[in-house]
């Protein structure tokens, strides 16, 4: 691994992975505790429409994807607030519509043939240095907003009605956080692909939640886990000459299933301990054994 770092593309891949970890750990915590994984998936997929639009209209790629993902985020958030019971259907529809628009617009653009795979799994080994600066900036903004609104974020996520009674501008902050999610996704997709984004947004916070005593601790643990998955995944990809994005996802997934297995063991041990203390303490038998 160390000798691999003499290559600039490897160093860039490592930095990109670490910044993606920082953003995903913080944003992903918000996404997971608010049960927004599906909505976030919808935003990421709808952003594909932006790639098509950017090619078709000849505008820079970043404006197309930002436009589509922000638009999708705002509409989906509004619908989720208005009718929470059926919002998943609506999100599913926008998800598909965004991708379909992307495919059709690419069809209609002469001479272009965009590789869907690189959009899905990204190309972390081909990250240009300029993108790393974008991600650094995005990471700084994400951290600043989260730290400034930390208490409000807790209140909105934990008990939104109470937050409303306290005069917290719930709707505005909700849109702000979702816009942050949308913008983060766009920058990270460019680097690691949308499937890796969803994996990094959901798996590390899910594991972290079980061991964290506060939202902040959950974010820190999620960032660390995410960084570990990234580095380990890159290392596996380098050693075995595999696709890096998919390797990182499988390493993260392995972490996910190991954490489930540990949960199972712990709960079994607790049950057994409880059963043992019951038999030890119960005087019901009295046969002297």
């Amino acid at each position, binding site marked *: 691994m160390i000798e691999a770092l003499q290559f600039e593309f490897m160093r860039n891949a490592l930095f990109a992975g670490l910044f993606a970890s920082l953003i995903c750990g913080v944003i992903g915590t918000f996404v997971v*505790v608010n049960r927004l994984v599906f909505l976030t998936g919808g935003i990421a997929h709808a952003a594909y429409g932006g790639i098509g639009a950017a090619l078709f209209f000849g505008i820079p790629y970043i404006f197309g994807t930002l436009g589509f993902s922000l638009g999708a985020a705002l509409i989906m958030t509004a619908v989720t607030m208005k009718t929470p019971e059926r919002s998943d259907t609506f999100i599913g529809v926008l998800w598909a519509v965004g991708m379909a628009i992307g495919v059709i617009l690419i069809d209609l653009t002469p001479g272009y043939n965009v590789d869907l795979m690189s959009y899905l799994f990204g190309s972390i080994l081909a990250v240009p240095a300029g993108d790393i600066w974008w991600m650094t900036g995005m990471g700084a903004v994400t951290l600043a907003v989260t730290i400034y609104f930390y*208490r*409000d974020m*807790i*209140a909105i*996520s*934990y*008990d939104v*009605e*109470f*937050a*409303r*009674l*306290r*005069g*917290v501008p719930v709707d505005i902050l909700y849109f702000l956080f979702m816009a942050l999610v949308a913008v983060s996704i766009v920058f990270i997709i460019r680097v690691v692909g949308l499937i890796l984004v969803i994996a990094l947004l959901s798996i590390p916070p899910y594991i972290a*939640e079980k061991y*964290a*005593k*506060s*939202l902040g*601790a*959950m974010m820190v643990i999620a960032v660390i886990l995410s960084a570990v998955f990234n580095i380990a995944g890159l290392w596996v990809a380098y050693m075995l000459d595999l696709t890096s994005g998919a390797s990182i996802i499988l390493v993260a997934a392995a972490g996910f299933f190991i954490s489930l297995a540990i949960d199972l063991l712990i709960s079994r041990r607790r049950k057994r301990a409880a059963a043992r203390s019951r038999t030890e303490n119960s005087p019901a038998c009295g046969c002297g054994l």
Partner: protein
Amino acid sequence: MDEPVITAEEVFFSYDGVPVIENASFSVAEREFLAIIGPNGSGKSTLVKLMLGLLRPDSGKIRVFGEPPRKISHCFGYVPQDVAINRSFPISVIDVVLMGRLRYRGSSRIRDRDREAAAASLEQMGMAGYENRKIDDLSGGQRERVFIARALTTDPDILILDEPTASVDTGGQAELYSLLQELNRTKTIIIVSHDLMVMSSSVTAVACVNRQVYYHDQGEITQDMLDMGYQCPVELIAHGQPHRILKTHEDES
């Protein structure tokens, strides 16, 4: 006569076209100890959310201290139902209570004096020493105390508790009622329950809810109120004195 703190005039509310509250008119006096009772699904929680301004009536008017409830929502200390809270959320007891100091007197930051106030409320609820425990590791009764501490931290004029005794044992209920009685000296208290056991001599008014609201500014349940749609709960039959159930219960203890 004191000015009423809450007034409702011909309030209607429906969810997706299904009427939940119909033609509710009543007024809650200052330092009233109001019990809102009614069977499950009768609209009790909806009525509370209308008073809090979390829901808007389809028609009719609700005023709190003469203002629309949304404008003075900070006057309320609200203890929601335990089941309404996001479970498995990683949050410590102290962070839950500090939510009560959000935007306190316009300040958007949590300061040392907010932490002191939060610790004092926990102390008052007998939960000192639990500050750094994860809320999910507490028992239902302990969680309830933390939510009440959070409501008290807001220094409310009106304290609203939605089914606070659902997860509290009988001893805990008695304790809770003596605490509420104490708080009632300075605050208006509104308590929601589908369980008539909650009532005590401290209750000064009863609202029976079954889509319509029957308001009685006396702290006891009469046969009339039960006839108006309340399904006779087990406790009433057990005590055998449906007209004076509350008094009976008090005398026993």
